[in-house]
């Protein structure tokens, strides 16, 4: 379905967007299996209407919001670099709304130190959920200042159309300066919380996946270097990885004084 939105040039990279076929054909969405082409093959069975997001926790007005209302928020196109922890990257023209616009609807209180995102579970159409490859639902989290940062968006579209299911329809988070797994897909629940959430990958491999997971060429994954990345569909991993995925000017101040090797 067409979803027109004007590009916000100030927040968009001038890097050429990756072909749509690649963005929609090469996905990590373990609910649909662990192969990169599994989501494109079977995510179309996911039911994305009706769709609501339950928003609760430390907010003044907890509520359930329908996807239609999210789509009526001020949408714009953001062309972002997307860097996977597996050392490949893409450039994607998302359409979405700043997360802080949604937060304003519920009014986080002073106790809201973190935000926890919970993804959908539809076992009947999700072979990965039935196989229990990991503990679902998928949970991710951000510190409140990270979530409220203008670069953090709720994406509802891609390439001028509504979001394909394999990319996390109907609504997902995009946090462009963090590894891709921080950008949870198909969100059904958002909680503002006082304590740092334990994300799915932290539970699985705490030594390999930290809470922050900011893109950082200086901190290797235990099993591979993060110094370079492969900009798909390149053969060579010849693109140097930039601190905070190239968004350091906008976000480095969020981590002033923090040891990023310790808080990886």
């Amino acid at each position, binding site marked *: 379905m067409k979803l027109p939105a004007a590009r916000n040039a100030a927040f968009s990279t001038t890097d050429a967007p990756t072909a749509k*076929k*690649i963005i929609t*054909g*090469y996905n990590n969405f*373990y609910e649909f299996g*662990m192969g*990169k*082409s599994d989501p494109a093959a079977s995510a179309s069975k996911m039911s994305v209407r009706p769709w609501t997001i339950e928003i609760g926790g430390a907010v003044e007005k907890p509520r359930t919001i329908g996807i239609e209302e999210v789509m009526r928020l001020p949408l714009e196109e953001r062309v972002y670099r997307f860097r996977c922890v*597996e*050392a*490949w990257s893409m450039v994607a023209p998302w359409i979405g709304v700043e997360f802080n616009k949604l937060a304003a609807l519920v009014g986080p209180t002073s106790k809201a130190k973190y935000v926890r995102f919970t993804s959908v579970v539809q076992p009947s159409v999700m072979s990965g959920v039935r196989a229990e*490859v*990991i503990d679902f639902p998928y949970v991710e989290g951000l510190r409140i200042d990270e979530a409220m940062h203008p670069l953090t968006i709720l994406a509802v579209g891609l390439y001028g159309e509504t979001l394909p299911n394999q990319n996390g329809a109907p609504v997902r988070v995009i946090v462009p300066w963090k590894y891709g797994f921080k950008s949870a897909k198909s969100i059904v629940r958002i909680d503002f919380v006082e304590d740092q959430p334990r994300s799915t990958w932290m539970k*699985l491999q705490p030594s390999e996946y930290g809470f922050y997971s900011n893109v950082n060429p200086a901190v*290797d994954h*235990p*099993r*591979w*270097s993060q*110094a*370079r990345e*492969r900009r*798909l*569909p*390149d*053969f*060579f*991993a*010849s693109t140097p990885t930039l601190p905070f995925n190239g968004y350091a000017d906008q976000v480095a101040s969020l981590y002033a004084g923090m040891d990023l090797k310790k808080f990886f």
Partner: protein
Amino acid sequence: MRSARAADGRFAWATSDPVRALKPLVFLLCLAPALLLVHDVLYDPEALGANPAETIEHVTGDRSMQFLLGTLAITPLRRITGWGKLIRFRRMLGLFAFFYGVLHLAAYIAFDHYFDVPAILADIVKRPFVTVGFAALVLMTPLAVTSTAGWIRRLGAQNWSRLHKAVYAIAVLGVLHYWWLVKRDLTWPMIYGAILAVLLGWRVWNETLGRQRRRPARVRARAEPGPAE
């Protein structure tokens, strides 16, 4: 020059040696995955998917592992089927395991590290799955080099076969390499591991229990010579 025509008037390749006739065919079959990759790189990159380098690394790594297991399957298959000539395919399978292993390493050096030698060395030292994978290929090299009849003669059959027992360690390292590399889905490392366990287990069984059981049979065979003797 030896005549292609055998004494009975038929061409040698068409006579008594099916292995010799089959070899070129098996060679082409073994080479086909590599030819297909070359074709796709040159003419149809989209067939390699969104991450062609990763596809090439997976295909070559898988093939290397499969040929290694195939090499190790020859001896049990000979015993079970009684078709002793299978042994004449073993060297080819082993060399193809090495060939695909070299392609796999080359892809890693070129695609993943972009020929950055210090980074590659650091990677080999730092990451156990790279260490064991690299070790497997290093160990395979002398086996590939000494795979000729000339080298068997030079080393002596006993030394040669002792050296080539390294293939067991290589196969174990190969499975470990795959096992430690995957993020979550252990299905294939487990399948390869199970096949390797069967192939090695068969050898252990054959060397110990099997030998004990066969002994009386051999004695009987000597006592009652068949019509061929």
